[in-house]
């Protein structure tokens, strides 16, 4: 029953590690989906919906660095700088040139 002992050890390790790490409150993806998509939803009448693959990572970088959104709409009241940072991270990590997942039927 070597394998079951290893499994139990693994699971124990897993539980301990999960316990010892405090959970995080901020999550770029969730923020993007609530804050940005609040306005960016097809049919919302405010702005078109879009996915992170809209731009490559360097383009997202520039978008935030030059604060390009301000020209279209000032969102500094709705979204805090801390949140923008996390959203920016999420968008860059899922940009057109990121290591995208592959499987049948994934766009």
């Amino acid at each position, binding site marked *: 029953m*070597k*394998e079951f002992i290893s*499994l139990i050890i*693994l699971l124990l390790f897993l539980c301990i*590690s*999960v316990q010892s790490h405090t959970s995080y409150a901020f999550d770029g993806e969730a923020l993007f989906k609530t804050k940005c998509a609040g306005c960016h939803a097809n049919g919302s009448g405010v702005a078109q919906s879009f996915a992170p693959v809209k731009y490559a990572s360097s383009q997202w970088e520039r978008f935030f660095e030059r604060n390009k959104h301000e020209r279209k709409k000032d969102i500094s009241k709705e979204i805090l700088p801390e949140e923008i940072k996390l959203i920016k991270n999420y968008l860059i990590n899922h940009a057109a040139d990121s290591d995208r997942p592959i499987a*049948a*039927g*994934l766009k």
Partner: protein
Amino acid sequence: MGKKQLASALIMLFLLTWTYQVAAENITVDKKVFEKILNHQKTLENEIEQLKQHLKENPASLTVPAEQSQTEDVQYLKEDVEEISKRLDKVETRSILDKIQLGGELKTQLESFRYKNIELNGVKTDQNTDEIWSNRLRISLRSEISDNIIFNGRLGYFKLWGDTDFGKGSSDWNHPSVPDPEGNLHIERAYIDYFVGQTPLSLTFGRLPTTEGPPSEFRNYSSRKATWPKLMLDAETDGIIANLSFDQWTGLKNSMFRAGYSKLKQNFLEYQGVELEDLNGWAIAFETEIPGIKNSFLWLSYILCNNVFALTDVPESAPFQISEYPDSESVGDLGIYTLHLQFSNIKNSGLDWFGSLAYIDIDADSEGSVLTVNIPGVGEVFYNEVGLFGDRLNGDLGHDRNGYHFYTGISYRLPFKCLKYPKLGFEYNHGSKYWIGEVSSGSGDLINKLGINGDAYEFYYIQPIDEKHMFCRIGALYLDYDYYNPLNIYGNQVKSDMALTSFYLLTDIKF
């Protein structure tokens, strides 16, 4: 009259009045000089009056020069925009014509193997290979043909350094002129994803993305790269899959139901009376992210393969040959149930875990390939008849079997920013006596640890060199065999105390 002139006139006037006063107070001035100054002042006053009048009549005249410079700027801008859009048009035309996006991955690997108790010609011995170098190149292709039609492909090249087939007269030196299968690009994947209108249904067909599936991404420092888990089936498959996304209906994130059909062997000579049964695969699967657990992945599937082909090749060193095949060259059917669960970056701790369980239900036919030996003076003599995990001599030909495989592992992203967050990983897997290793052999590793009937342990360290593009992995692998069958899945499973220790170092670059 310009602004400047007006200003100098004012300054002069001011100076004049000031000196006048000074003169009145302190100095006596010659009358002639005084009249001259007075006249001059009058002319100046006249001029100022004229200026004022002019400005009253033409209030815009003050800003005339400014307006001129602005129109110049606008003119420049217009020219620039025109030039840029002309150039952009060219770029756009190019990018529209660039129908295929190319990507690539190059892996260079050094491995060493140490076998203990390996059986060669009936004799147990140890065997070491200190270094095996290999290159693997993958070229990926993608074409977004339209919003609804996407092509994906991957070409692969995998070759041991300096390994060429000298018998064919080809070597690395003359490769450019002599085609050699060893160095050719091979088509690993070529499929279309067709998304049916605005529905959640899509069809995937062609040579499917079915190799190196989850949990390979942990070891390969990448994202998910195939449809189904390694333990369900890790092989290049031609077929068709219907995918139904459940996200919209159920609120389950990344949830999908799939049904697939594939042919692993096809008898295209049936019309000539060749009686071979096709080896077909039917699969149904469901996958989803577990509600409330970000980056989790749950997979459940069943795949049925009918008409598993009979033994048609024997090792060169074998003392027997095949003299007769079973009907349709088929030895039975099998069903594989797979449950896979994985969590990536659990609660942002940098820890990944996966557990994978596969169960094979083997329905063996009571016929197999007949083996004979040639005895000089006597002729061909019956040796044995081997089917799926059974043979005539043992009397277990046609006995149904069950096999399972269990595979688990963790990896942990070390919190060392200065080292670019390296990863440590440990994996363990166990294959039972009747596990069919063929099911998981498409991964491109020289050693298919998931093919074992026994236990395998692997420990690795991943050092990112460039967070997105390049990493090194160093690892150790230990395989402890319980059974090893030189005839693979045919005949009785042979007990074995063979063990294999392997160390490897590889570097992988994605671009």
